[in-house]
């Protein structure tokens, strides 16, 4: 076998078959995938959650993960944020010709590892190879199906005044890890992506007292809080002092002129929960390895609907707005 992915690997012939069999099914296989029929046939009953996401991260390998792990965690987390227990994923690969097979294998191994950890099965998939320049090494799409347990009603429109706002840990780790890798900026303390499946953490805390869950990915915590404030038509007040940010991330943000509130996360969730339950939920979250840094960061209010206001360290307050456009390092 060649040591790089060739256009012929996507032709549908023997090379395609070999690639799927040896590099994908051999690693990711299960009783459903192994049938290799045109569609996966699934058993499920109850309320289904269904989501899809495409992953185009560059670089495809970064401290703390790679595009494979990300493509599983991202979709698993999207399902988990509606309270669903994720069950099945699809996996579509768009590979730029020339990708070293060893890299593909590493990525498939980490897809397997992330799926195993999350307890989901890859049940269907597709592989395409495109000309050099038509994709950036590897693009992945995953879709996922999960089942929502009885009695849960978790949605972006469900935040109520009085709810406590909880974040499951430090913010900004993923975005800064990617950026430092992309721009070749090295820090003494390596900054590692927080990319992780959060479905087990969610399973431990969900109840009718959990009103909203969302993972603050692109646009960071600021975008998520603004979305939830808008959907629920409530105001959100947060306290800068209570925001968990790693020292190294804070330093990197200062250097580059960024605000950690706007930096992407891939292993964090925001929860809006009934005030009386907040302490109990925080305690449960902190017992999970992906929630050890959980903190209450603010509350939902009836004032200023649609707006997020932050009390600064100095005691003044300011608007936390939706991010606009791409984050760019400062010039001056």
């Amino acid at each position, binding site marked *: 076998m060649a040591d790089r992915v060739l256009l012929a690997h996507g032709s549908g012939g023997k090379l395609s078959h070999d690639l799927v069999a040896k590099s994908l099914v051999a690693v990711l296989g299960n009783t459903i995938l192994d049938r290799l029929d045109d569609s996966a046939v699934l058993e499920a009953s109850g309320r289904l959650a269904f989501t899809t996401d495409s992953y185009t991260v560059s670089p495809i390998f970064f401290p703390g993960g790679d595009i494979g792990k990300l493509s599983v965690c991202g979709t698993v987390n999207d399902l988990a944020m509606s309270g669903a227990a994720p069950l099945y994923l699809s996996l579509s690969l768009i590979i730029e010709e020339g990708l070293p097979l060893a890299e593909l294998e590493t990525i498939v191994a980490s897809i397997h590892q992330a799926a195993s950890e999350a307890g989901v099965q890859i049940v269907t998939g597709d592989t395409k190879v495109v000309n050099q320049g038509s994709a950036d090494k590897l693009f992945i799409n995953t879709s996922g199906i999960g089942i929502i347990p009885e009695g849960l009603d978790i949605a972006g429109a469900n935040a109520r005044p009085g709810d406590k706002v909880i974040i499951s840990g430090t913010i900004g780790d993923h975005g800064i890890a990617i950026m430092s890798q992309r721009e070749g900026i090295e820090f003494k303390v390596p900054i590692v992506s927080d990319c992780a499946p959060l479905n087990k953490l969610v399973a431990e805390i969900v109840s009718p007292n959990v009103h909203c869950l969302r993972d603050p990915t692109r646009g960071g915590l600021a975008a998520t809080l603004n979305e939830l404030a808008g959907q629920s038509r409530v105001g959100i007040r947060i306290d800068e002092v209570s925001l968990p940010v790693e020292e190294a991330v804070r330093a990197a943000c200062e250097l580059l*002129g960024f605000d950690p509130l706007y930096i992407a996360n891939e292993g964090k969730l925001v929860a809006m929960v009934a005030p009386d339950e907040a302490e109990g939920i925080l305690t449960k979250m902190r017992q999970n390895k992906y929630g050890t840094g959980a903190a209450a960061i603010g509350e939902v209010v009836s004032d200023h609907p649609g707006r997020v206001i932050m009390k600064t360290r100095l005691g003044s307050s300011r608007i936390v707005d939706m991010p606009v456009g791409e984050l760019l390092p400062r010039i001056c």
Partner: protein
Amino acid sequence: MKFIDDYRDPKLGQRLIDRIQHLSTTPVRFMEFCGGHTVAIFRHGIRQLLPRTIEMLSGPGCPVCVTANQDLDKAIALARQPGVIIASFGDMLRVPGSHSSLQQAKAEGGDVRVVYSTQDALAIARENPDKALVFIGIGFETTAPTIAASIIQAEAEGINNYYVLSFHKLCPPVMKAILDLGEVSLSGIICPGHVSAIIGSHPYDFIPQDYGIACAVAGFEPLDILLSIDMLINQIETEQYRVEIAYRRGVRPEGNHQALKLMDSVFETGDANWRGIGIVPASGLKLSQKYQRFDAESNFAIDPGPAREPAGCICGSILRGISTPADCRLFKNSCTPEDPVGPCMVSSEGACATYYHYGDTGGG
């Protein structure tokens, strides 16, 4: 790594605020020259914490904002020339020029690339020896040394397809120009932090000496800024005007000798065109005779035609300190960060973008 928290300490902050409130008796108007300071002041809600006697104004210290349309048009015209790759800091792409933008030129097939440093630009030049790489050199004394270093490196490596379109600008001359215009009466100036790390504090000595205006160089953390305001108030209340440094960890009075030497070896001062202010003598940096072969303006025929300003945009007045974004009828209406009319809404350090994002609760 603890240093950031130390400069955001709420208790020390409160003590400084108390002291400022106690000291400040007469109404004063301060200009924070630097866009980075405007952002920090809004981000930390500092205006709300100051006594009513203190009015803060944003100055022209935003590299993207002060680039005149005429200069921007040159960059756009170059982007349309075959065989030319433009390398630029990202913010510049979205700034509307007279008729187009770099982003537009890129969409029409121009090879325009966003870079984060001159090292990236040099790498593109190396990879594309059959094309001309033109780096759009904007910024103040902070960025100029790195541009100078890239030119010296290109010379040493024999990279013959690297050019700089130099729109670099100098801060002290434009401060003098704003003071000489006399449109805005200032009691004190918060001098730029990163610029001063390069040039030191002495280049501002003329401000207290000739104009009787208080000066303090500040960093970008809340305590840095509060300390600089405290220094300004102190100077005014005791009528002892001088240039103080509230950013000792970054700025020495004499500046950074190495960086200054590098700048001197590659650049010479020339007139520069500032948006809203016009041509200010000796306020820009042009490539010196010895490095002419790296100068884009001398090596390419660039004719962008006459420049024009967008109707209704008051970025120029905002940069001179005589208007605030709230005075602009386009602000938040037809001019937003998604669809900006003027550069102050594009740049993350622009006054309009800052007012837009941090809103009225930051306004105080």
